[in-house]
């Protein structure tokens, strides 16, 4: 497995130029609208120095990990089972379609009611945000298995367990990996929102706290930059999963 980070000079150069323009604009028109890149950098330095940055990143990642893991371990098997079983799908699909368009953020009051202000509430919100996309990904992945593979699998007289592990699972794995990558992105969006309301640590809390406690917009933007950077790293990590040979087959279809 190779994780190749193509560091291309041109986009980096472009970002550099934008940052310089930003700084120049701030210097010429100092005001309250936006902090400049230098003060944001200083704010990140302060956060690192006080140890708060690491603490908040760990807190956010902790919630995302649990929420995502719970969502995946329930949503994927359930989705595969529902997708496989036409009757189950007919029975459950309307319910799923009703729950699916409800933003995970709409669950915030319910989460606080059930779990109080704390990690559990945030984990629950991320779980809700991951569960439905993964459920639907798994269902459609099952629908998209070419009938040929199913017939070939049946022809060789596999036990139900062997059929699942040797035909069903490898056939859906590539689509699941793509779905998981997108869903992890959603989880990372949801955690910020959840932390603004339901807890008092994490990167989302950092942002809302910096604003409330003295309009420290340099810290707000610092938090945004950190969120963006970690989101990018998570996505790159999931992308490298797509390159595993036994998953890759569907991307290199002849």
């Amino acid at each position, binding site marked *: 497995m190779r994780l190749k980070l193509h560091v291309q000079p041109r986009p980096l150069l472009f970002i550099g130029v934008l940052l310089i323009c930003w700084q120049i604009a701030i210097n010429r028109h100092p005001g309250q609208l936006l902090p400049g890149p230098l003060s944001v950098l200083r704010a990140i330095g302060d956060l690192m120095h006080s140890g708060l940055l690491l603490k908040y990143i760990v807190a956010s990642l902790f919630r995302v990990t649990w929420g995502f893991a719970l969502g995946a371990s329930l949503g994927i098997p359930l989705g595969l089972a529902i997708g496989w079983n036409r009757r189950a799908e007919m029975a459950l699909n309307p319910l799923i379609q009703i729950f699916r368009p409800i933003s995970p953020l709409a669950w915030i009051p319910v989460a606080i009611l059930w779990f109080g202000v704390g990690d559990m509430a945030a984990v629950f919100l991320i779980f809700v945000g991951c569960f439905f996309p993964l459920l639907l990904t798994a269902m459609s992945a099952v629908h998209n298995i070419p009938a*040929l593979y199913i*017939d*070939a699998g*049946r*022809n*060789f007289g596999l036990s139900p367990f062997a059929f699942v592990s040797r035909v069903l699972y490898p*056939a859906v794995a590539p689509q699941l990996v793509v779905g998981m990558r997108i869903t992890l992105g959603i989880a990372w969006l949801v955690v910020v929102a959840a932390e603004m309301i339901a807890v008092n640590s994490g990167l989302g809390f950092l942002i809302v706290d910096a604003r409330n406690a003295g309009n420290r917009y340099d810290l707000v933007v610092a938090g945004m930059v950190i969120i963006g950077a970690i989101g990018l790293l998570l996505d790159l990590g999931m992308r490298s999963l797509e390159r595993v040979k036994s998953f890759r*087959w569907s991307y*290199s*279809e002849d």
Partner: protein
Amino acid sequence: MSLTNAANTPAVAAMKLRAEQLCVAFERDSKSVSVLEDITFDISDGEFICIVGRSGCGKSTLLNVLAGFLAPTSGSVIIDGEPVHGPDPRRILVFQEHGVFPWLTVEGNIGFGLSKLPRAEREHRVAHYVQMIGLQGFERTYPSDLSGGMKQRLQVARALAVNPDILYLDEAFGALDSITRLAMRKELLRIWQTERRTIIFVTHDIDEAVQLADRVVVLSSNPARIEDILTIDIRRPRNISSPHYLELRDKLLEQIGQAYTV
């Protein structure tokens, strides 16, 4: 139900498969459309049968019924005296294309049906069939890196590896170019002659049928009935420009309703 028929057939080769008055009808727009009607024939052990007919006439449907993937609306398929109730590893269907598992290597595909065998035996068999289909050096290759002909050989090898009595091929060479197709026919005949399995081969290619088959089952269209069962009495290796070959081919073309001039 006639006992006399079953008891009094000490034929030269044992009977392998019997299709008895097969009918298949599909529901379409709340109307029943008949696809197969009253298909009856016998196939003896080790025989090479081709089924030909116009495209869309129901050849593949018939093959799916014979292989147990599709239950007939009426009638039955009897193999070795037992009615067929579903697919079975003793008879393997080879698909037109994309039938190999793309997530497994050449070795993994050939060994797919062998997981119950002890490791040494399995490896031995996989090596044997890799050799037979001439894919030495490609054991660890994934199907996406193989040519169409290689993939079809791989599919045939995967089928043969589980030692089936019957091999069903559904236009198995139809997606290949004409040169590869010729090579594949030779290969299949060679394998058939060394391993002696019953082969039922669906094709829309008349030449293919006359080159390969002991007997050719000709289907009519809409719904498919048996038009004729033609015995190809040419000795192998077959000379495909001999007058008798051309005569049989023309006869088949005529039965399918095609003139043999272009």
